[in-house]
């Protein structure tokens, strides 16, 4: 059974058994515009909540994506290297960014659920 959390920085995080898959929201991809490059972290990187994890680049600008909670990177979405536009076309599934093993699940309490997030960008 998975549960999906959202952050004020327009990331989503699907948590299942101590592992989180992270991406950016539909709203975020719309604001960024067409992505042309995604800089992913190395597997094994330890991230603290708020650390820059990923850089997504549109034609015009580079934007940081932050780690929503503490954890260790266990997998990155290598498909984005060849096809960064997956983040635009499918931000919530095929356009996921990275997976990490959570260090402190109590940090999840501070995040929004889908309804709260939707209300925040409405």
């Amino acid at each position, binding site marked *: 059974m998975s549960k999906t959390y959202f952050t004020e920085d327009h990331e989503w995080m699907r948590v299942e058994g101590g592992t989180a898959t992270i991406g950016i929201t539909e709203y975020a991809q719309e604001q960024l*515009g067409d992505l042309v490059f995604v800089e992913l972290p190395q597997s094994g990187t330890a991230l603290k909540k708020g650390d820059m994890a990923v850089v997504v680049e*549109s*034609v015009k600008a580079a934007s940081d994506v932050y780690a929503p909670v503490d954890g260790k990177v266990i997998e990155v979405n290598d498909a984005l290297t060849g096809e960064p536009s997956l983040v635009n076309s499918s931000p919530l599934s095929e356009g996921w960014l990275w997976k990490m093993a959570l260090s402190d699940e109590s940090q999840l309490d501070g995040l929004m659920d889908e309804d709260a997030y939707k209300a925040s960008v409405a």
Partner: protein
Amino acid sequence: MSDLKHLPLQSMHEEAGARFGTFAGWRMPLAYPAGVLKEHLHTREKAGVFDISHMRLFGIEGSQTAAFLNRVCPLDAELLETGTSKYTMLLNDEAGIIDDLIVTRLDAERFIIVANAGNAAKDEVHLRAAADGFDIRIQSLDRVLIAVQGPEAESILINAGLDLSDLTFMTVSEPHGHWFASRSGYTGEDGFEIALPIDEAQGFVERVLADDRAMWVGLGARDSLRLEAGLCLHGQDIDETTDPATAALLWAIPKAVREKGAFIGAPAFKRILSEGLAEKRVGLVPEGRQPVRAGAILLNEGGEPVGRVTSGGFGPSVGHPISMAYVARAFSQPGSSLIADVRGKPVSMRVHPLPFTPHRYRKG
């Protein structure tokens, strides 16, 4: 910011779904729902419509206008034929570029200057100070300025009731009272810039956009188009600390004008040319897919800084990232290798000739 300036056609942009941002003190459309990538490609394939009314038009007239322009610009305005335009600059005493602009001769004693929005106020002060002693009048003109750029631009304008097919690159006409149209632009494509009275603008733009080959294009794609075309953005690629030779804009200054040396900044410019340039503006292409943007430092193989990127991003038409930079002369030849520092990571780059996409101007 309470003094943010608004385009006269702002409500049209809002209705078109534009996303706005601030540029040079103006609230400007950055992109429309199609997005920067599609807007860029559509311009090269068909035609883009740009509202560039933030740019400032100065009318200059009087018996000594040509002599005045020869003083403030490295230009021979006497040789500029009626109905033609030239890319030139305002230089300071050190030959630094105060602004780059297009000067057009409308008739013997009447010229028009199109200046960058962010520099307009400063340009006006400079022009008025330099005007002392010349029989001229300088007037800031209130117009909407619309650029229609791309291979279908001429035909779209004909359908909209404006036939500019007689014009060739860098020539102009005045199709109606207080209208001013030139075959020029900032994309590398064939196209036009049309200045017209504010109260006639909405109707004209509606006629242009009624053609489904025409599409609104925002500042985002304007920037990627001009970067592919190798054109400078003042304040980024050139400024008051860069001279025309270092900026690789020597082509804009005729040899006779350099030799005569009548323009402001001429002695300093002569000295710069005789001493030789320390660095030069070049194009760069990174290896791989990562854009290298303005501010990145360029290193040689020994890790020493030898340059800096002034513009960079993704070139939708070339299909890879591109940059413009200043590099030490030893690295300015096409093919030279450099290493960019991108957020602490090295990215290999190679000097590439400008432009990245061939210009497709309609020359006479």
